[in-house]
């Protein structure tokens, strides 16, 4: 049942083309994209879907506060520097 909506399509504002729901529910390293409610609330009961298939801590991770672009960039730079051999 988790895959029931997988073939439904919508336009992805992040990527700039049409995608199926299957992508949206896996976008964040296997978990749903944080825009999943924004993009799907009109098409089916996405709130119910999320409640049904995801734990509270997963929801908290999915919808954790997005950070400003500059902050994200600085963090990515720091992470990359730490990965340097």
């Amino acid at each position: 049942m988790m895959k029931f909506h997988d073939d439904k399509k919508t336009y992805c504002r992040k990527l700039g083309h049409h995608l199926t729901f299957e992508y949206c529910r896996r976008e964040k390293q296997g978990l749903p994209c944080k825009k999943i409610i924004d993009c799907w609330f009109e098409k089916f009961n996405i709130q119910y879907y999320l409640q049904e298939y995801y734990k509270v801590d997963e929801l908290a991770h999915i919808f954790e506060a997005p950070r400003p672009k500059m902050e994200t960039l600085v963090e990515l730079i720091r992470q990359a520097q730490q990965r340097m051999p």
Partner: protein
Amino acid sequence: MPTKAFLTEDEMPRQWYNLAVDLPSPLQPPLGPDGNPVSPDMLAPVFPMNLVEQEMSQERWITIPEGILEILWRWRPTPLHRAYALEKAIGTPAKIYYKNESVSPPGSHKPNTAVAQAWYNKEFGIKRIVTETGAGQWGSALAFACSLLGLECKVYMVRISFDQKPFRKIMMQTWGATCIASPSNQTQAGRSILDQMPDTPGSLGIAISEAVEEAVTDKSGNTRYALGSVLNHVLLHQTIIGLEAKKQLEKMGEKKVDIVIGCAGGGSNFAGLSFPFVNDKINGADIEIIPVEPFSCPTMTKGPFIYDHGDTAKMTPLLPMYSLGHDFIPPPIHAGGLRYHGMAPLVSQAIVEGLITPRAIHQLECYEAAVLFAKTEGIICAPETSHAIAATIQEAKKAKEEGKEKVILFNMSGHGLMDMAGYQSFFAGQLHDYELPEHEMGDALKAVENLPKPKIVKTGKW
């Protein structure tokens, strides 16, 4: 009556406009993960210092180097069209103008900043630029720019887009860029994801991680990263659109523009057209300035479930708590300015100030507008651009009802010849608008009515 206004190359603006200087409520300095302001040296591993300086510049006008002008002249100044046929079809007394950014070789406004960024990188001694892309609009623009400047370009394209959108990938290759699917095995970030999820379709987040890692870990120091939207210097480079449009409107005999419209994703094409007019508005002009987004996935407007209360440090779309279970508590709100996730801070603050007024439009109305535009003006627009056209038609119809000869200007930010799948779905009747039942919307609004509200920094003049 002229249909188009051209500028000669000599008439093209020689400076970009920096709205950050004129915003009545200044932007807070960007903060790093530790909560302290981001310093230039923190960005040095990914951006050349000349672009870092632009990002933080407090100069109102920034001179466009001759080397950039010489490349922009290949397709700029872009024409300003008077949409006579569209006006006739609507039967409006309004005068509709559009700035045609689709004439750039990659087909959109994005090369305006791609060329500038590539040029500044080259000036700084950089040999190679890496970036990420989804469907490829930004990746192809940067590949084009690097090709003209003799720089290497590498684009991490989200795997699902890489598989489903092959043509822009080929465009990038044609311009000499290396385009690879992300996650890849060429970075630690990519390998780590592939180890965990070999069949992952990728994401922009992963692709950005890979591109940044490649820039940071190049020990030769010859590689940097480029971003196509959101940041201040990106918006700055796009202001040439609005600055040209102002000169062209004058050539068409217009003393004043009443309404300026652009579609808004990250904000760069909207900002490019509108910021010079925002400056006019700050200085007393009566202009309505409208960024437009899809109703189905709004960022700037308050959709039924979208409560973009946020701040400079931890912007968060607050979700109706009932809808995700009572145990789920949204992230905390911090005091500061309002930010819209994914939207350029300069655009966000202009919304907060009331200088611009966002609007959301349903997708069917957008495609109907796009088809009418194609049938009347002849250009098949990009799906994003259709939002600006739909809002323009709304305003033209309103002018008709009011019997007013308003001057409306919108940004034709790109053509849609690479994005016909949406049109195909529209003609097949596969696109639908959905209206949320009123009782559900009421419940959602009730669920958030007692949540703390963000502190909004604004002067209250608009």
